[in-house]
């Protein structure tokens, strides 16, 4: 059994710390962190795609699939358990991507971006047109139990927070291990030189397809958790601006580390709340301004503040 | 014509060139000889303006080049042939060669005819698209393009590398002819075999430092 590497250890420490301080946090803070982590999951998937050399403007598709699956679980599966809902949301997103990926994995750059956008907007259109799903109003979502425990009292206060934390930790740690493996090393290789990868006997399309499915699963999980935390599901989750927000988080945090998207998501939520509280009519200006500053001065994302520069040889 | 005085150049805080000084007169063919990684390409890119020196001066025909952007340096008469050719794949050979003329808004068809006369191999390819060219053919096109701009100074980065011996000899003759007509030429190579007989002066570059070997030219 390999010893836990530095990143996984640090993630573990962060997990324990966040769990430990939770009794001290007010409700709004727990909620903010939960929703941020859910969005961070989507951004983590985007970071994986960016490391493969692709930018998706349509992760909202899977985010919405995760949210709607979780919300419809009582109706379609007779299920009331939050853990089941998250798993179902993850699975439904991944299954749809497994099929769509057969087409999308053939494209790159602007064509890839446009295709991903297109599919998410197709779902948006379908959701808006379905009165059974509440069309633009959506419907309320919620769970009664989590992993068997009834969602009341103390459990209710912490359950989703803990669930979000565990999902974030597990995703970050597993993705880190994946990227460090032989299969995972093909991800930056594909981004750098697809021709060479083929000439070494590996299939570029298979690597891209796999990463698309992994990113979609993360987005589905994030969508399900966010839906349960907010208590509501609506088609906006599939809209292109939602997808754009995830891209923004990925750029803000940078692709340097698996923990970065979560930090970026929390910071963005804090920034947005702060801007809205202090400049309710111009908060978008504030957020846009910050984005501009980050791109100008920290083009590799906030995480580059922590990274030491990699030396070449003399 | 070209005067480089005491320049330092770093890339990503790694010092590539140290206190480099050299000069090439009109009608002189200079060789910049050194191993890979010694700094030949870096020096040429600095003269052309793709990199800025940390200190020191570069002058062309008496005019200082600091602050002058790359495209303006080209219009001043510097022709540059990069080691990796950089041919535009969607354009034909003729279009690639004429690119500098279009950029300058000048009609240089006479010059084109002259270039075709000097290097008939390029004339034979003129309607071929860039992406259909072999590596060596791209090199020829890059050379022709450099000749389009190079009215005063020619910078050729490894012009004979990747080129069949027959053609390398021909190119060496072309370069010598241009030198005889008054152009200042500097070419870089990792060894002297192709150009020994032609060079008027040899600069050796090693780990970013340049020393001038004795004047070489001989019949």
């Amino acid at each position, binding site marked *: 059994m390999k010893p836990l590497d530095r990143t996984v250890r640090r993630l573990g420490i962060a997990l324990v710390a966040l769990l430990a301080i939770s009794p001290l946090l007010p409700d709004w803070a727990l909620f903010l962190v939960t929703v941020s982590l859910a969005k961070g999951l989507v951004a983590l998937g985007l970071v994986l795609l960016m490391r493969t050399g692709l930018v998706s403007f349509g992760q909202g598709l899977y985010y919405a699939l995760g949210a709607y699956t979780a919300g419809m679980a009582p109706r379609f599966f007779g299920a009331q358990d939050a853990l089941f809902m998250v798993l179902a949301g993850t699975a439904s997103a991944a299954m749809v991507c497994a099929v769509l990926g057969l087409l999308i994995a053939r494209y790159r750059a602007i064509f890839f971006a446009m295709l991903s956008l297109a599919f998410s907007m197709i779902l948006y259109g379908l959701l808006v047109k379905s009165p059974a799903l509440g069309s633009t109003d959506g419907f309320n979502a919620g769970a009664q139990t989590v992993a068997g425990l009834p969602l009341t009292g103390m459990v209710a206060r912490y359950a989703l927070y803990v669930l979000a934390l565990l999902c974030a930790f597990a995703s970050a740690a597993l993705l880190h291990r994946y990227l460090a493996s032989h299969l995972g090393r093909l991800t930056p290789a594909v981004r750098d030189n697809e021709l060479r990868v*083929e000439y070494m006997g590996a299939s570029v399309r298979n690597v891209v397809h796999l990463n698309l499915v992994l990113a979609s699963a993360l987005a589905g999980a994030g969508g399900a958790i966010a839906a349960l935390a907010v208590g509501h599901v609506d088609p906006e989750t599939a809209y292109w601006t939602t997808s754009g927000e995830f891209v923004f988080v990925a750029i803000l945090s940078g692709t340097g580390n698996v923990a970065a998207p979560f930090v970026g998501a929390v910071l963005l939520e804090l920034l947005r709340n702060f801007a809205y509280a202090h400049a309710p009519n111009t908060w978008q200006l504030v957020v846009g301004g910050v984005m501009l500053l980050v791109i100008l001065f920290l083009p590799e994302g906030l995480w580059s503040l922590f990274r030491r520069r990699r030396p070449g040889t003399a | 014509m070209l005067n480089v005085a005491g320049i330092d150049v770093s890339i990503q805080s790694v010092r590539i060139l140290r206190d480099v000084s050299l000069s090439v007169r009109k009608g002189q063919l200079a060789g910049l000889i050194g191993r890979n990684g010694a700094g030949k390409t870096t020096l040429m890119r600095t003269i052309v303006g793709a990199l800025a020196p940390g200190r020191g001066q570069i002058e062309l025909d008496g005019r200082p080049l600091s602050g002058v952007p790359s495209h303006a340096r080209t219009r001043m008469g510097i022709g540059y042939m990069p080691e990796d050719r950089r041919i535009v794949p969607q354009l034909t050979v003729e279009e690639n060669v004429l690119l500098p003329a279009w950029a300058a808004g000048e009609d240089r068809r006479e010059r084109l005819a002259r270039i075709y006369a000097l290097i008939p191999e390029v004339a034979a390819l003129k309607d071929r698209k860039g992406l259909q060219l072999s590596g060596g053919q791209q090199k020829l096109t890059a050379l022709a393009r450099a000749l389009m701009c190079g009215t005063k100074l020619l910078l050729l980065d490894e012009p004979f590398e990747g080129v069949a011996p027959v053609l390398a000899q021909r190119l060496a003759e072309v370069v010598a002819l241009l030198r005889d007509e008054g152009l200042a030429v500097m070419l870089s190579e990792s060894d002297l075999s192709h150009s020994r007989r032609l060079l008027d002066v040899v600069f050796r570059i090693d780990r970013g430092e340049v020393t001038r070997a004795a004047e070489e030219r001989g019949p």
Partner: protein
Amino acid sequence: MAAILETTDLTKTFGAVTAAAGISVAIGEDTVVGLIGGNGAGKTTFVNLVTGYLEPTLGTVRFAGTDITGLTPRRITRMGICRSFQIPQVFESLSTRDNLLVGLGIVSLARRSFARSTVVPGRTPEDAADEMLTRFHLEKWRDAVASVLPEGIRKLLDIAMALAVKPRILLLDEPTSGVSADEKFELMDLVLGAVRADRVTVLFVEHDMEIVRRYTQRVLAFYEGRVIADGVPADVFDHPEVRRYVVGGGAVVPARERSC
């Protein structure tokens, strides 16, 4: 001796341009063959056709008796034919060691689909990578990112990556171009030394005739997509058409002047 590589009437046209015109050659196992020719003569096209990068307009390619015409580079690599590139194709953002590990990792993941394998059971890809670093004198560049490597080292890395698979046929496209004179021999000695023990057939495209003369047992000279001469180096260099279109002038191939 059965041919390990055999092309029959191999032809490739791009509209009006004929890059390869009916090339028929049979290459035996365990030989080193030089491919020479002027620019645009068809040498790289030949390599591209054999390795599956291009699909022939006409003709076939057989590898150890099996028809591989039209197969993808991925399949052909797994069957045991590898190549290096005129402009080194490496993974710019990865370290030298990681570049090697990409190939070695692929082999260890899909071992059964690869004809031979550098990674034998019991030896990890990491060990194989370290051993290759040592064998190719790349230890000092081990952790350097590929984008900072000098040209000669990148060329060497490109070739080393092609060897991760332990091919039966290795095709090198201008292995010494861009490499300084005093490093050329070292590179060729290193590469050929690394493959000789495994009886690998090596074909390399070269413009440096001294390298060709010194390392090959057979030379194919190309001109306008055809093979105009085929034989031992001395004979091919003396061939009148080869003199005219490739090596030049009446004199024998000039002796190398080394820079010091």
